[in-house]
Structures are given as structure tokens and as C-alpha cells.
């Protein structure tokens, strides 16, 4: 066990030494990997933030029912009873017009405008959550409610949120595709680096084989080089994302202050950061493994 560990330590040391032998080429490779990975991971962070934002605005489908301005309290009460007994309604909430005005005053960016109003232009309203949240059921419920007397306007509020959700899902798909493509690029970069390494270490490999080295012994330092390079590339990608977020965050803070909203970009969390770096290291390892299997076999035939 101790031998085995020291063996690995040796390979790791050898890999580091070989990487440092040609620092410029190594840095370029690591930079390429870092930039390639920062693209999907940066987009992922942005999308996550968008998702957070949309979650703040509930995406549970709801129907807003605005009453006629002239509706009397008795008529409102009758409507309440009607909603209570309706089989398609899960629950509902009555928003009196005064409360609606107060909420509007608190909400984003238009407090000043509301202040300047001389009378309350808002009607009484119900916010209704349907039992069945499929688009067709909601549509049917909306149509039914809008035929009721005193219903001035019925609106499916959440449709835009659903659309945003769908859009976010699409965005995630795009990121996934991008990540897969760029992963291939990363594997290719490592494949090539290791190929060059093998060419320069050719004598050493041949001698090691002649004096009884197993393929595993020969492969190991190259795998470490690939994994180390991937690891370093992952760290670079993380740094690029962190810096970009830091820069963007300032811009976004300026922008959102103008809308009197407080919104801050979240950075990659620890588990995402860990996965990014480990995944990158793993891809490097895979590229190295492919390269070594292919090129050592060629040396074997000589």
C-alpha cells in the first residue's frame, strides 16, 4: 500500500515536472481549456440567477379577476360565495382596492407615480388558484369567470412566468449542448498535448518497456498530466466566471438601483464549483487516457 502510494506520488511529481518543463505551452493549453469551460459555466450562472429572479415572481398559475368599479359589497360577497363553491377553484384571495393601492405603492419603481394620484383607480380583485393548472383548464376557467356579472376583466397572470420557465428550460438545453461540444474540444486539446508529450518521451517509454515496465506504469504520469491540466483549466474557468460576475454585478446593481429593486448576482456555489473543477480534471484524464492508449500501442509495434 505504501509502495503503491509512493508510486503515485512519484508519477504525480513526474507529471508536474514535465508540465513545468514547458510552462508557456502548458499555460496556453490551460488557458484554452479555461476559456472553453468558462463559457457554458458562465451562462449556467446567469441562467441560474434568472431562474432565481423568476422564482421570486411566483410561477404558479393564477387567475386575476378584476371587478367592475361599480360592484357593491353585496355583489362582491355573492361572488365570493360563488368562487367558494366552484369545483375548479382550489383557493382564492380577495384583494380590496385600497390594499391593492398600498401594495402598488410599495412595489417596484412607481411609488412616486402612485403618490401623485388624486383618487384610487384600482378595482377590487380576486386572485384565484385553480385546482388544475394545465393551460386548457385555466383557459376554460378564465372564460367561465369572465361571463359572470361584474367581472370586468379576467387575466391569466402566470402565463408569462410559464413562458419564462419554458425559455429557461430551452436555455439550459442550449448550455448543455454547448457544454458537451466544448467538452469534446477539451478532450481533443488534452489528447494532442499528451500526444506531443509521448513523442518527446519516446526514448524513456521504450527503455521503460524494455526493462519490464507495465503499460499501467508508463501510462500513469501521462494520465496525471492530463488530469492536472484539466484541473488547472477548471480553476481558470472558475476564476473567469468569478471575475465576470464581479464586474457584471456592479453594472446590474447600478441598473437595478434605478428601478429601486435590490438584486444581486449569485456566484457558483461550492458544489457547482467543485463539480466544474472535478469535471474538468476528469475530462483531462479521459483525453490523456485516449491519447496514451492510442499512441503507446503504436510504440509497442516498434
Amino acid at each position, binding site marked *: 500500500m505504501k509502495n*503503491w502510494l509512493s*508510486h503515485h506520488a512519484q508519477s504525480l511529481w513526474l507529471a508536474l515536472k514535465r508540465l513545468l518543463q514547458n510552462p508557456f505551452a502548458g499555460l496556453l493549453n490551460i488557458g484554452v481549456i479555461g476559456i472553453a469551460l468558462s463559457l457554458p459555466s458562465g451562462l449556467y450562472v446567469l441562467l441560474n440567477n434568472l431562474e432565481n429572479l423568476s422564482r421570486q415572481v411566483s410561477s404558479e398559475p393564477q387567475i386575476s379577476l378584476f371587478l367592475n368599479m361599480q360592484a357593491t359589497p353585496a355583489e362582491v360577497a355573492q361572488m365570493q360565495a360563488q368562487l367558494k363553491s366552484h369545483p375548479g377553484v382550489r383557493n382564492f384571495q380577495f384583494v380590496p382596492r385600497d390594499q391593492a393601492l398600498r401594495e402598488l405603492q410599495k412595489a417596484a419603481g412607481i411609488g412616486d407615480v402612485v403618490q401623485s394620484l388624486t383618487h384610487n383607480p384600482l378595482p377590487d380583485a380576486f386572485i384565484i388558484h385553480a385546482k388544475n393548472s394545465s393551460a386548457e383548464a385555466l383557459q376554460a376557467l378564465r372564460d367561465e369567470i369572465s361571463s359572470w356579472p361584474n367581472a370586468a376583466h379576467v387575466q391569466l397572470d402566470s402565463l408569462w412566468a410559464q413562458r419564462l420557465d419554458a425559455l429557461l428550460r430551452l436555455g439550459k438545453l442550449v448550455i448543455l449542448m454547448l457544454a458537451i461540444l466544448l467538452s469534446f474540444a477539451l478532450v481533443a486539446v488534452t489528447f494532442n498535448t499528451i500526444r506531443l508529450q509521448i513523442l518527446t518521451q519516446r526514448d524513456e517509454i521504450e*527503455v*521503460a*518497456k*524494455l*526493462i*519490464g*515496465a507495465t503499460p499501467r506504469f508508463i501510462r500513469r504520469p501521462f494520465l496525471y498530466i492530463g488530469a492536472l491540466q484539466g484541473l488547472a483549466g477548471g480553476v481558470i474557468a472558475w476564476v473567469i466566471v468569478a471575475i465576470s460576475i464581479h464586474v457584471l454585478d456592479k453594472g446590474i446593481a447600478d441598473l437595478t438601483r434605478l428601478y429601486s429593486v435590490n438584486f444581486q448576482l449569485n456566484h457558483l456555489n461550492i458544489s457547482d464549483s467543485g463539480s466544474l473543477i472535478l469535471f474538468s480534471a476528469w475530462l483531462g484524464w479521459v483525453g490523456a487516457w485516449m491519447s496514451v492508449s492510442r499512441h503507446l500501442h503504436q510504440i509497442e509495434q516498434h
Partner: protein
Amino acid sequence: MISLSQVCKRYPGGYDALKNISFTMQHGELVAVTGHSGAGKSTLLKLIAAIERPTRGSIIINGQNTSSLRTAAIPYLRRNFGLVFQDHKLLFERTVFENVLLPLQITGFERRESAKRVRAALDKVGLLDKEKTLPITLSGGEQQRLCIARAIVSRPAILLADEPTGNLDAAYASDIMELFKSFNQVGVTVIIASHDEAMLKRLNPRLLKLNCGELAS
């Protein structure tokens, strides 16, 4: 024990390097393979070390038939041998010490014990004071001795040397031959291939003479 029976080696293109070779060696023997260039000496050594496989016939080393050995088992078979090459095959970006250490790293030897063995091997060939230098600074004879140190460091039972004195002047060459003789005296089986029959005869070996791929009696 090394035993060859009816071994033939034909290279692609139809050239027969070895034809119908059969002989047996016991442990601790000193065997010299001689013949002109192209007689098949190197090929014979390569077949014994399983660097190449015979086209026909069988080679049995310590009870293992190399021609039917799995590829994965070959590295372990090679650890029975110490190989000395005419062109040394040293690693020039590693120090003298690291060159000799390589076989022990391959077999996964413990570090402190390895260092002891490396120094013992270097001492044996008279290079102990050069352990930190790079092989490029050594003379031809010293490089050959370094190659020998690397071959003996893992204390193999069989030492195979292909033209070990090929590039050396007479004084160096007889030094090297003396070294092989001393290994043989402590029980190592030694096989030396060389065209220089006069030099070999001084070791008083069992002579195997190759002539155009065939064994002359």
C-alpha cells in the same frame, strides 16, 4: 534455465534471421554468442528477452514459454533479465542515479532500500562519485558501465548483453568483460553477444557460433 527448441525467426519481407536454433542453458552458465554482423546474434537475444516473438519453435525461460505468453505477462518476464545494450539506451535528462533507479521504480521498490541498491550497483561499476551528473558528461566506457549498473540493480538472474564492448577501445572493453565475469562468478547467468571472438574467449565461456542464422557446432 533457458531452453530454445527449433526456433525460427522470419522478418516481414521473407528474411530469415534465425533458422532452426535449439540449445539449452543451465543456471549460472556464461554463454558467448558470436558470429559476423547479420548472423542473428541480436535477434537471438531479442527473442530470449521477449522483445520479439519467434515465428516458429518455442523458447522456455524458467518454465515459461515466451511464445505463448500473454502480452500482459511480458513485463513481468522481462524483470528476470538485466539488459545491456550496445547503444546504452540511457535517459539523458535524468541523472546517473535516476537512470539506475528506474528499474527499481518500475518494480515498485521501497525508496530507502532502492537508494542503497542503486549506490551498490554504481559502486560495482565504479561510478559512485558520478551519481549526480548527467549521462551526457560521461565517456563512452562510463556510459556502458552505467548501462550495466542499471541492468544489475534489480539483481536479475539472467544478464543479456548485446555487443557491450562494440564502441569501446580494448582497455575499456576488457574492463567490461571482467565485470561480466564477476557477475557470473556470483551465480548470474550471463549471455554476451559479440563479434569479437578473441575478447570473448578470455572469459572462457561456452561458445555459440552463429552463421547466417544457423548454429554452427
